[in-house]
């Protein structure tokens, strides 16, 4: 557990470093995600250098992700408490967000489904 937690924190740290050093728009944790993906592939079952660590990382990540929704509560509360900032334009903003998000979700899902037929099937 502790080793896996260390690896995840460490890769996030490296990600934050890369983001700052190269001054790129991609957030540190997203770079950390790519690095962790790299670690998992480099240690695919055939190679077996860090077999235990790989297994631990998978377990730790899955249990952390089980609570992913909870992690958005503090920032969501911040939104409610700062709604004043949208004063007078709140209805317009809600219209954009609701209709824009619905349209984007449907467009993307339908598009994915259409292109999916061209890929090899599962």
């Amino acid at each position, binding site marked *: 557990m502790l080793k896996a937690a260390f690896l995840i924190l460490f890769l996030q740290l490296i990600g934050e470093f890369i983001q700052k050093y190269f001054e790129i728009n991609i957030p540190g944790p997203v770079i950390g995600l790519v690095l962790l993906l790299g670690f998992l592939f480099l240690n695919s079952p055939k190679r077996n250098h860090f077999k235990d660590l790989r297994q631990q990382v998978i377990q730790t990540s899955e249990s952390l992700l089980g609570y992913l929704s909870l992690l958005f509560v503090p920032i969501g509360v911040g939104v409610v408490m700062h709604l004043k900032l*949208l004063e007078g334009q709140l209805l317009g903003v809600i219209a954009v967000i609701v209709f824009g998000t619905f349209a*984007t979700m449907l467009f993307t899902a339908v598009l994915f489904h259409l292109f999916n037929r061209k890929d090899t099937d599962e």
Partner: protein
Amino acid sequence: MNEVTRLYEIWVYLQAEPLFWLTLTVGSYLLADYIYRASGLFPLLNPVAISILFVSGSLIIFDIDYERYFSGAKFIHFLLGPATVALAVPIYLNWKLISAKRIAIISSMILGSIFAILITAFISFIVQLDPTLAKSLLPRSVTAPIAMGVSEVIGGEPSLTAILTVMTGIVGAAFGTFLFDLFKIKNMAARGFAFGLASHGIGTARALTKDKKAGAFAALAMGLSGIATAILLPLLFHFLDIF
């Protein structure tokens, strides 16, 4: 000193401590999750949305400012970074399926990201939002740190963008399943991908609780559309004359 004053003094002490707000946050989430399950997983009773309402309702009733609340809630908030790194795991575990669908993934990533920007610009124009607000809305579909960076580049207000991005995530997470069921989109990969692309991390969290495969595609879409938007939006912005 009477009992009421003593209790009041203890409350004054406790509400200044992080422990109280941390407990309130986890408790509200558990309660919201219980209600969601008791309702037979009714999509509109999304646990994130309901627990946000519980917590912010309590803060308003007891007149607590957000900074005080956040002194406790920041311990939960901090875990968002490591959890984002951890999203590599569902992507890794579903890699075979993902590489089999690469054409769908790449084309939906590019076209979906462009569509999200254009539809936002279009509706903002119709409802006549003020230009700074409209610009702050443009990157709202992608994860907050990327959205805020892009917002700054195109002349929006990053703090507004943070709010608008989280609102987008909550709307997507709360209504996505409902919408896909209504339009009979059953493919879990397509549903997950749309969740991640249109409503970033909050949508991904929603997709993950529903189906692991959908979660993997959502995580992938969140990362890819974030990168695509960071590159495409500043370019596309030059052609959006309406602002």
